[in-house]
Structure formats: structure tokens, C-alpha cells
């Protein structure tokens, strides 16, 4: 029977050709910054965190994208990324013009050549952005700026005050092997969550000597992984989709766990017993940057978007809806809740420094403490082993 053998041979040849083509495309150049914003291209495809680019489809009253579309003629197509890893993978497809990257994706994107440097002088609102967000290790490299800060915030501990008593003030409640809330605890479903365990151990087990939860020696990493394997026994569900987590807290199948303020804001409307707290050990968090894809098809629209989203009006809307500190403090006066910026400490540099913003762990320790830190590829493998 010659036909199947020929077919198989053809298939092999074609596939080897395809994979050879695929492997040569890695390590792209990184693109160039614009020198001037030209006319809008009429379309824009961006990857964003849920709640960052609302166009009225979640809640008709929550919409700042439509005004942008009307003002610039750039029709926005938003793809929600659930985790930084998902956003990194989506950017690898080359189909998007930009992304709201947290620190644990932004550095990877810069290193992989997937994003272009940004000419910040073209963004008129850039001058107003809080100085402690500019030229940070997660949004600049080699003296070049790679993005426009969007906003920042912490990962809070949310709990159902009817069920969880007394009111918790420590992350220890979610890491308690013998927790009375077994089966009703949640954790973020991404390898970066190992940093939350490390942050807790920084206070709970000072003998480990953890300083930066993203710069861990093998011993410190193993301790964090061991803590998480114990936590696995009390976990009801891991969450990566914010809407599913919101539903679980509302319904009561989850009563305790890490969350984003936006999930609390949405869930508390249906379940007033929910509360958030920033535990005493501190928290991990994220400082997000709008970045432009190296091969963006609509760079002018992307620059127009970055300028729009950092304007005081748009910043006020998104910071209030999402529950984060706006990058542009001029938004503070425009937010419906006049205490918003105080609550989120938008201009408090010291508080911002206290949050362990998401960053991608590298072999060469991020905090400069050495060259033997556990790299992110190990974090990814460990996460599968933790979940069993």
C-alpha cells in the first residue's frame, strides 16, 4: 500500500518545513518609537485586563471606550487577558497593537523583542503621571522607555464577614493547613502566586531570609512551594477568570482568598457581607503599563489610546471602576468618591514601594542579590506540581 506511506512522507516534510520556519521567527527586532502621531488607522486591537477598557458591554453606565472611538475614529477591539502569561502568549501571535502589561509580563515582552520603545513626549498626559512610576525596571530598559503607566494596586484578601470570624488581618488564614474554611478558600491560578507565599514567609519565617519575593534562592523557593502544596488541601477553587471568582464569592462557595478590588466592587453589590483587607504582611500587586507591539498594525491609534487613557477623565473612570490608584493624580479630583485617591494612596510613594509589584523572576536576581535565583521557567513547572 504505497499511498499512505507517501502521504506520511509528505506530511512529515511539510511539518518539518513549517516548524523550521516557526523557529527562525523568535527574537524579533523590537520595533521603533513613533516620531509623530499620524492620522488614526481606524482600528485598534488591544489586550487588556478585565475592567481596563470598558465599552458598556459589562455595565451600560461603565463606558470610556465609546468616547475614544467617537473622538479618534479608532474602533477598539479588546481582548481580555486573564493572566500575565496569557497576555505574553497573545502578544507572541503578533495580532495585537498593544497590551496593558503588568511587571511580570512587561520585562519578558521587552526581552523577547515583542514591544517597541515608546516616545513619551508624544503623550501629552505623560508629564502629569506620578514620577515614581516613570523609568522603572518594569517599563524601561537600556535608557529607553517602553510604555505609559496606567495605574497600580495591590492584591487584597477578600472574605465573607458572616462566615470568616474573627476578621482576618494576616495572609496566614489562607495558608492554614488546618483551616476551618477548608474547601472554601481560593488562590490566584498563576505561577506568580508563588510570590504571595514567599511574601507571607518573609514575615512568618524570617529565618529563611526572604527579602524580595521575586528573587528567591532554591531553599526559599522550596519553602514557598511546600507552603502552597499544604494550601492545596484547603483550596476550593483556583481562579484566573475574574467573573468566575466574582460568582463564587457572591454565591458563597468561596469565602476567603486573594482578589482584585474590581472583583470585590462587582461582587459586593450582590453579597454585602464581603469585605477586603490588606493584611499586615503586605501584599503583592501590579503596576501596569500600556505597551505598543513591535509590529503593531495601528501604532497611531495605539498612541492616541495611550494618551486618552492617561487623561484625567478616563483615569478617573477606570481607577474608580477597577479599584486602583490612577497613574495620573489629576484624576483624583474628578473621581466620584472624593476619598478614592486617599484610600488607594495614589500619591503615596512610600506605600507604593511597600507593595511587591509583579515582576518576572530571573536567574540573575532582580534585587541584585546574586546570580542563583530561581528563574520563571521553574516557577511554571512548580505551579503544576503544586496543584497536583
Amino acid at each position, binding site marked *: 500500500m504505497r499511498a499512505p506511506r507517501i502521504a506520511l512522507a509528505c506530511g512529515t516534510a511539510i*511539518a518539518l518545513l513549517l516548524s523550521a520556519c516557526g523557529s527562525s521567527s523568535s527574537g524579533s527586532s523590537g520595533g521603533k518609537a513613533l516620531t509623530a502621531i499620524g492620522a488614526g488607522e481606524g482600528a485598534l486591537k488591544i489586550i487588556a485586563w478585565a475592567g481596563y477598557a470598558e465599552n458598556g458591554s459589562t455595565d451600560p453606565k461603565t463606558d470610556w471606550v465609546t468616547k475614544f472611538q467617537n473622538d479618534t475614529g479608532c474602533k477598539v477591539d479588546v481582548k481580555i487577558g486573564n493572566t500575565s502569561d496569557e497576555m505574553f502568549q497573545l502578544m507572541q501571535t503578533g495580532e495585537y497593537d498593544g497590551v496593558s502589561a503588568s511587571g511580570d509580563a512587561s520585562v519578558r515582552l521587552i*526581552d*523577547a523583542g515583542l514591544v517597541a520603545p515608546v516616545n513619551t513626549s508624544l503623550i501629552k498626559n505623560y508629564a502629569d503621571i506620578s514620577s515614581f512610576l516613570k523609568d522603572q525596571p518594569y517599563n524601561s530598559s537600556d535608557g529607553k522607555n517602553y510604555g505609559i503607566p496606567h495605574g497600580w494596586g495591590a492584591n487584597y484578601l477578600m472574605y465573607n464577614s458572616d462566615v470568616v470570624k474573627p476578621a482576618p488581618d494576616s495572609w496566614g488564614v489562607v495558608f492554614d493547613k488546618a483551616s476551618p474554611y477548608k474547601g472554601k478558600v481560593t488562590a490566584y491560578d498563576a505561577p506568580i502566586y508563588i510570590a504571595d507565599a514567599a511574601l507571607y514567609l518573609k514575615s512568618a519565617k524570617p529565618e529563611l531570609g526572604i527579602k524580595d519575593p521575586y528573587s528567591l534562592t532554591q531553599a526559599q523557593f522550596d519553602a514557598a512551594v511546600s507552603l502552597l502544596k499544604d494550601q492545596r488541601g484547603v483550596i476550593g477553587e483556583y481562579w484566573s477568570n475574574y467573573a468566575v471568582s466574582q460568582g463564587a464569592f457572591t*454565591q458563597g462557595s468561596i469565602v476567603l482568598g486573594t482578589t482584585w478590588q474590581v472583583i470585590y466592587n462587582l461582587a459586593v453589590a450582590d453579597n454585602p457581607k464581603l469585605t477586603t483587607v490588606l493584611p499586615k504582611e503586605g501584599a503583592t500587586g501590579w503596576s501596569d503599563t500600556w505597551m505598543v507591539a513591535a509590529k503593531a498594525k495601528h501604532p497611531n491609534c495605539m498612541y492616541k489610546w495611550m494618551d486618552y487613557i492617561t487623561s484625567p477623565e478616563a483615569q478617573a473612570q477606570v481607577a474608580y471602576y477597577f479599584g486602583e490608584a490612577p497613574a495620573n493624580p489629576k484624576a483624583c479630583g474628578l473621581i466620584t468618591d472624593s476619598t478614592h485617591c486617599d484610600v488607594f494612596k495614589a500619591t503615596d510613594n512610600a506605600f507604593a514601594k511597600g507593595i511587591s509589584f509583579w515582576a518576572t523572576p*530571573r536567574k540573575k536576581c532582580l534585587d541584585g542579590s546574586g546570580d542563583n535565583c530561581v528563574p520563571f*521557567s521553574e516557577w511554571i513547572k512548580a505551579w*503544576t506540581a503544586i496543584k*497536583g
Partner: protein
Amino acid sequence: MRRRVSRFVDGRPWLHLGALLTGPVAWIVVLYFGSLIALFVTSFYRLNDDATAIAEQFGTSNYHELLTATVYRDIAFRTIGVAALVTIIDVCLAVPIAFFIAKIAKPRARTALITAVLVPLWGSYLVKAFAWRAILGSPGGVLEKTFGHSPGYGLGALVVVLAYLWLPFMIVPIYAGLDRVPDSLLEASNDLGAGFWLTLRSVVVPMLFPAIIAGSVFTFSLSMGDYIAVALVGGPSQMIGSVVYANFASNLPFAAAFATVPVLVMVLYLLGIRRTGALENL
């Protein structure tokens, strides 16, 4: 022009066949085999340490990782176990249902019943999975509100949901297979004194064996690859699909390596079925 072409083709029947088959064969070779081979080739690459890009290193480190770290073995066996359980449950449910529709129901009711079996397939997978999430939720789920207790999310819930989702895929081949069981055989069995269950067990099921195998290929392979239902109702459990989905975004070569496991399992399953001779009668 047309006459010239038809004269050329007339004496060469292989040209007819070739022209007809080029499309489907190209589809299978390029898209199906080609993608499987591309997947296999990808699994030999490695992610660089900092996880920024796929390193240009060819090697078997992914397979080494799969074989040495016990967690992947556990996940693979768990997935096979769930798939097997789902298949057995679906067979037990599908045979009586299909038997009723094919042999006992009146001809008019038959059409309505088989439509009722097929209609859920028109519904979106996600809608059905979310519906089960609402049913099984604890507290506040439909089951709990009605009966006071719900199993909650976990492997048990996953088996229930997968058995529900793939049941039409089991019922339809068995229903078609029952057409080959002549009514005269059932009457003969009845005349000899066998009750309903004895007839089912010793006359119908052996004749249905190829159809059951055909259905089982569906339920087994669909369960092996599932990653959505397990995320919605499986609680914190992981199946092969979940690991592939999680690593797809961050470590593609490893996801490719792990994805060859279900392919291997299905190949072994089909080879095993071939030995029983069930494929001959399809």
C-alpha cells in the same frame, strides 16, 4: 473543451478517484497529520530559563521532565481514570435509552425521542458547563436548594458533567447499531423465556459491541482532552487538558510534550480495539 477533458478522463479511472480524493487527502495529510507532527516536533524544543522565548535547543528535556516528576504520571492516570469512568457510565445509560427508542417506542415517538437526545448538542458547550456549575454549586446551587445536599465541585462533579455532555455521542451509534438487531431475535429470546434484562445482556449487548466501541472512542477521547469542564466544575483538580492549557501560554514545548500523552493513549486504545475485531463490523 469539455469533450476533450471527458475523453482524457474516460480511460483513466484513477484520475476520477484522484481528483475526488485530493481535497480530503490533502486536508488529512497537511492539516491533521501535519499538525500532529508539528506538535511532536515542538515538544523537542525547550523554553529558555527566563521564560522569554523558546530556546533553539533540540533535546528530550521535556520528556525527561514528564517521566521523572511524578505529578504528571498522577495527572495522566487520573485523566485516564475519569475518561474510563465516563465511558462506562455513558454505556450503562445509553444502552437502555437507545434500546427503548429503537425497539419499544412507537415509530412517531421515536423521531421525537431521538430529536430530544440530539437537541442538547445544539447548545453551546460553555452554556451547558456553566449550567452544571450552577446546579452543583454549594451553597446555593440548584441541587442543594432542592435536595439539601450537593457534591460540590471536584472529580465526582466532573465525571457527572462529562457523562452528561458526551451521552448523545454514545446514544447515537448504539441506536444505529440496534437497527442491526432484528426484532425476530428479540421475540425468539422472549419465547425461550428470557426477561428484558437477560435478553439485553446476552443477546443485544454482544451484537451491539462494535457500536458501543464506536461510542466509547468519542467519550474516551473527548474526556481525555477536556480542559473547560474541569476548570468550571472540577474544583482544584487538574487533568491533562488543564496542564496543556496552562502551559500553552507560558511553556509551549512542554505543553506539546504533554499533549502527546493523550495521542499515545488513544492510539493504544484503538490498537486494542482492533484486536477484538470490533472495528471489522463497523
